[in-house]
C-alpha cells in the first residue's frame, strides 16, 4: 500500500473555531486498511471478556481489526491471544465461536496446538529432515496481552505504549462503571449481534453523541412517553468528556428510571454508598456511555464491541452484563430494563426501538458520503467552549461534539 499517496494528515483539519473530517476516511478502502494496521493491530484492541473463558481450555474466536484470533485460557489459568491460522499452510484452525478444547487441531494435515497456542505436534515427523521446523514454536501470538478489570486487550505492536498510559485519566470513569458491581467484577451474558452497511466509526461517534437522540429517537421517546415509561420533563442534563487517547464520555443523570424500578435503584445506590461512601457513590452513579478507543463502549449495563468488516460494513456485539456480588433484585431489574427496552439507552440494534434507528442512520450516512462530493464533515458544536478539566481531560456541554473531535485528534496522531 502506498501510504504516501493517502496523506492521512490532510484528512482532519482543525482550526480555532472549526473541525473538519474528510469523507474519504469513511469510504476509502486504503484508509480502512491503514486504520486496521495503525489503530487496531498497533494499538490496544479489546478481544474478549474473561468471564467468557473462565476455565482452562475455554476459548472464543475474536479479531484484532481483521486479524482473526483465538482467545484461550491455558492450563496455567492465563489468557492467550493467538492468530487463528496454522503455522503449516495458514489454514484457519478453529471455526467455532466459543467452546472448550484440549488441543487446537488443524483439519488440513493434523498439526496440533496446545491450549495456550504452543505447538503440540507436527504429524509425520519421520518424513522431514532431522531439525526441520525447530523454529515453529506455536501459533503466531499477540505481542502483548493485558487484562483490565476483566476486559482483555491485545496488541500486535511490540513497542505499544503501556495500557495505563493509553487509558490515562479515563481510568477513573472505567472504574466507576465496574464498581457498580459490589464485587468489582461483571459477567457478560450472551450478546446481541448486528450488522450494518456503514463505516465502523459511525458507531464509535454515535454512543457519545448527546445531540442526535432528540431527532433520531423521536419515535422511541414518543412511544415510551405514551406508555408512561419516559418523562419528557427530564430534559437533557449532563455533559460530555474527552480524553487523550481518543476516549470519550456522554454522561447523564439516571433521570429516566421508570417508576416501577425506582425503589430497586434507590436500594442499589444505597448499597453502593454503604460500600464506597457517599461521595464516591454519588459521583459514580451516572449513566455514562464510555468509549475506549478504538473499539469498545461501556454502555448502560451493557458492553458494546465494534468489529469492522470492511470500509462500509460493521458488526456490533452487545453484551448485557451481570453485576457480580450485587443483589438478584438489581440484576433482574437491569435485565428487565435491557430486554424489555424500558430504558431509552437500550435495545438491540437489529429490532430494538432505539438502536435500530441509529444503525439506520449509519447506512444512510454511508450512502450520503459515497459520491465523494460531500468532501468535509463538520464537527463544530461547542468547539468554542471546550474546557480543560485536568491533564489529558476536557469537558463540554451534553450535546457538544467534543468526544467526536477527541477521537479524530487521536485518529490523526496514530495514523500519521
Amino acid at each position: 500500500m502506498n501510504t504516501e499517496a493517502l496523506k492521512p494528515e490532510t484528512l482532519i483539519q482543525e482550526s480555532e473555531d472549526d473541525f473538519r473530517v474528510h469523507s474519504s476516511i469513511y469510504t476509502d478502502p486504503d484508509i480502512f486498511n491503514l486504520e486496521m494496521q495503525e489503530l487496531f493491530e498497533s494499538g490496544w484492541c479489546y478481544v474478549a471478556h474473561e468471564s467468557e473463558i473462565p476455565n482452562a481450555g475455554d476459548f472464543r474466536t475474536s479479531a484484532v481489526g481483521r486479524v482473526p484470533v483465538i482467545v484461550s485460557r491455558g492450563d496455567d489459568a492465563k489468557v492467550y491471544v493467538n492468530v487463528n491460522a496454522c503455522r503449516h499452510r495458514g489454514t484457519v484452525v478453529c471455526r467455532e465461536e466459543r467452546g472448550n478444547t484440549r488441543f487446537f487441531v488443524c483439519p488440513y494435515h493434523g498439526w496440533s496446538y496446545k491450549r495456550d497456542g504452543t505447538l503440540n505436534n507436527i504429524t509425520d515427523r519421520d518424513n522431514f529432515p532431522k531439525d526441520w521446523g525447530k523454529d515453529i514454536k506455536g501459533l503466531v501470538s499477540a505481542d502483548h496481552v493485558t487484562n483490565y478489570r476483566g476486559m482483555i486487550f491485545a496488541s500486535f505492536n511490540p513497542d505499544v505504549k503501556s495500557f495505563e498510559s493509553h487509558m490515562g485519566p479515563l481510568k477513573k470513569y472505567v472504574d466507576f462503571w465496574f464498581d457498580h458491581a459490589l464485587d468489582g467484577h461483571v459477567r457478560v451474558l450472551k450478546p446481541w449481534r448486528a450488522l450494518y452497511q456503514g463505516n465502523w466509526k459511525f458507531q464509535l461517534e454515535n454512543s457519545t453523541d448527546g445531540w442526535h437522540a432528540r431527532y433520531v429517537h423521536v419515535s422511541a421517546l414518543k412511544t415510551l412517553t405514551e406508555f408512561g415509561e419516559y418523562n419528557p420533563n427530564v430534559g437533557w442534563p449532563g455533559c460530555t468528556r474527552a480524553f487523550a487517547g481518543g476516549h470519550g464520555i456522554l454522561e447523564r443523570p439516571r433521570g429516566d428510571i421508570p417508576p416501577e424500578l425506582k425503589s430497586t435503584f434507590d436500594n442499589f445506590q444505597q448499597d453502593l454508598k454503604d460500600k464506597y461512601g457517599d461521595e464516591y457513590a454519588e459521583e459514580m452513579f451516572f449513566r455514562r456511555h464510555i468509549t475506549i478507543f478504538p473499539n469498545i463502549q461501556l454502555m448502560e449495563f451493557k458492553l458494546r464491541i465494534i468489529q469492522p468488516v470492511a470500509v462500509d460494513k460493521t458488526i456490533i456485539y452487545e453484551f448485557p452484563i451481570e453485576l457480580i456480588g450485587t443483589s438478584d433484585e438489581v440484576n433482574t431489574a437491569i435485565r428487565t430494563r435491557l430486554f424489555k427496552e424500558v430504558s431509552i439507552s437500550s435495545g438491540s440494534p437489529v429490532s430494538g426501538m432505539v438502536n435500530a434507528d441509529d444503525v439506520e442512520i449509519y447506512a444512510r450516512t454511508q450512502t450520503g458520503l459515497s459520491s465523494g462530493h460531500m468532501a468535509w464533515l463538520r464537527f463544530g458544536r461547542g468547539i468554542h467552549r471546550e474546557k480543560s478539566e485536568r491533564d489529558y481531560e476536557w469537558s463540554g456541554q451534553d450535546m457538544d461534539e467534543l468526544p467526536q473531535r477527541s477521537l479524530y485528534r487521536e485518529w490523526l496522531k496514530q495514523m500519521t
Partner: protein
Amino acid sequence: MVKANDMTILPLLSRHEAEDFLYKESRLIDEDQLEDWLKLFTTDGIYWVPSDESSDPDIETSIIFDDSRQREKRIYQLRNKHLAQDPPSRTIHFISNVEVEETEIPTEVIVRCNALISEMRPGDHQFIQQGLSSPRTFSCRCLYRLHQDEDEWKIAIKQVNLIDRDLPLENITFIL
C-alpha cells in the same frame, strides 16, 4: 359403533384449520393490518424470535421477546416514524410444512410450520440507498402454541427460529 377413546383421534384443530389461521395471520401482517394482528394473541401471549432457541428468554438475550405491552409499543412506534421503518417494509409470507400436534392441555395445540418471508423497503428508485429497494429473504422454522378461547383460537406463543438467528443480522423492525 365409535368407541369413546377413538374420539380423541379427531384433532382439536385440523391441519386445514391451522393453515387458515396461519394464512390469516400472514395476510394481516402483509397487508399492514397490525392492530388486528395484535388481537390474534392471548393477553399473556408471547412473540419470540430467539437467537438461541434453547435459551431462557427471561435471563438471556433474544432478537425479539415481546409480551403484549411490548407488541403494542412496537406497533405504536411503527405508526410514529420509526426511522428504521421509514419507509416501512413490504412483506410477503409463504407458509408451508404445517403440522398440528396436541398438547397435555385440552384447549391448546402446537402448530409447526416453515415460513419464507420476502421483504423489501421501497422508496429508492435510483438504487443507491443502503437498505432500500433491495429484497431480502428470511427463512424461518416457526412454532405456534395456540389456545382455544371459547370458539376462537389465539396465539399463546409465536416462536420464529430464523435460519441465521445466531449470526449478526440486519434490521428486523418489521413483523416476521
